[in-house]
């Protein structure tokens, strides 16, 4: 398996021998990878290769699938997230997810942002308002929408909705952002905007994104992992994986022979 090519001290997520089963189907096969703090990691590969499944194990959203089972371990800052003692709500506060389809709640913009902090017990109105402003600023929506915080979130345009979903996540003050094809329902310009935002967010957060768009992976990520049929075939610096893939299957995929 392709190991880490980075300094150990900065590893925020360390995945070792991870297997994931849907019933008897082995969807992930002995995946090992290290994710470095404040970088963007892109997972690429053809449909059904397990990249979204892998992403969902990082905050244990994969638990929600009935009949699923996981083996191996994921260390988040040195602690195994599959340990029975893990507080799953705290884990998901620290490692949040942005989904393929923007999924704002049918509430106002402000209440969307406040939802996360509230479920984690934040009651202070001033703190909540501050979180609304700072999160919307972080995703570049504040100037545009500050006078319309009562507006229904579901009425925003698709890329604004996706930004809002990212803002909603930032409001719970996470460390890792998981993004499952966050741009797949957006037009090219909105996609570039979100990519720009990801580069900006990298300064504060670690981002793992799944994409089937290889140009996007090349543009935005520092590290890339190529997956095929549940295996992580190759994982290294994006510049090297795209210019000089070590595995023939990676080469074939990147040069467009399949996928």
């Amino acid at each position, binding site marked *: 398996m392709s190991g880490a090519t980075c300094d150990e001290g900065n590893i925020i997520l360390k995945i070792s021998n991870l297997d994931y089963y849907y019933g008897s189907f082995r969807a992930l096969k002995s995946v090992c990878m290290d994710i470095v703090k404040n970088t963007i990691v892109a997972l690429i590969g053809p449909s059904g290769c397990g990249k979204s499944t892998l992403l969902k194990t990082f905050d244990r959203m994969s638990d929600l699938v009935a009949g699923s089972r996981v083996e191996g371990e994921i260390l988040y800052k040195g602690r195994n997230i599959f340990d029975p003692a893990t507080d799953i709500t705290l884990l998901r*506060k620290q490692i949040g997810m942005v989904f393929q389809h923007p999924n704002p*709640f049918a509430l106002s913009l402000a209440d969307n942002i406040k939802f996360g902090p509230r*479920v*984690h017990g934040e009651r202070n109105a001033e703190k909540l308002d501050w979180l609304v402003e700072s999160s919307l600023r972080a995703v570049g929506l504040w100037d545009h929408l500050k006078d319309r915080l009562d507006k*229904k979130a579901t009425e925003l345009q698709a890329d604004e909705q996706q930004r809002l979903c990212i803002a*909603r996540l930032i409001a*719970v003050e996470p460390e890792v952002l998981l993004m499952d094809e966050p741009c797949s329902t957006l037009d090219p310009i909105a996609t570039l905007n979100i990519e720009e935002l990801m580069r900006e967010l990298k300064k504060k957060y670690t981002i793992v994104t799944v994409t089937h768009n290889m140009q996007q992976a090349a543009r935005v990520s520092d590290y890339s992992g190529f997956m095929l049929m549940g295996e992580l075939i190759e994982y290294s610096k994006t510049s090297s994986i795209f210019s000089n893939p070590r595995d023939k299957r990676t080469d074939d995929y990147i040069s467009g022979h399949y996928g």
Partner: protein
Amino acid sequence: MNARTEEKIAVNVLRFSAFLAIMILLFIIVYVSYKGMGSLTPSFIFENPRDMGREGGIFSAIVSTLYLAVLSTLIATPLGVGTAIYLTEYTGESAVTKIVRFGSDCLAGVPSIIFGLFGFVLFVIYLKLGWCLLSGALTMTFMVLPTIIRTSEEAIKAVPYELREASYSLGATRWQTVTKIVLPEAVPGIITGVILGVGRSISETAAVIFTAGSALATPGSVLESGRTLAVHFYIIAREGISMEKAFATALVLIIFILTINVITYALMNRYISKKKA
């Protein structure tokens, strides 16, 4: 027969059946209004029945009906919605879910007279509540539960999975997700089930006679017996006490149910448009 004629016949048959449904409703309303309108005066509404219902009005029956409907709705709604939440959000599709759902569907098919007998044995005799509105309301609770469970379940299932995902991924618990995200979205559907339940407990006779009795006086509390509008109608019509009063009672009953429907649908529309706005 060619396809064109077939199509024509099909359209007309379908149109006729749709037309028939609305005609039956209209016929009932018009007929009951025609027969009952003459006796429907303010004093009929606000006076108590005298001489077994031959004279006077139906005030006590209106009060009994309200008691029974409100009480059974208050008990059945949390139980039914709670069951629906448990089945949809907490169990997954397991054997337990299937058994509970099957049981609840069977319950829906039990004839009301059997519920009456069951309520009589359990509440009136065994729990020594006697014939009273509480016994009646508890029995009606069992009868309307399946309806509320089923409609609530459908309403909760219709809430997009993505919203739950978003909530869980922010670290919300199941209960937080249910109460803050899922239920507010499902409210209109749940209300539909509750209205169906209210309608059923207002119009039930057999099970209510067995459990709430048929006392003519205005009940002072839910521990007293009372005669609901439907029961009053049944008794004075069956015993030939006064057909005019019976039809006037039926008219009040129909107006009751139509009003509840109209008001709740109006409230529901306002709720939905407020959520969208």
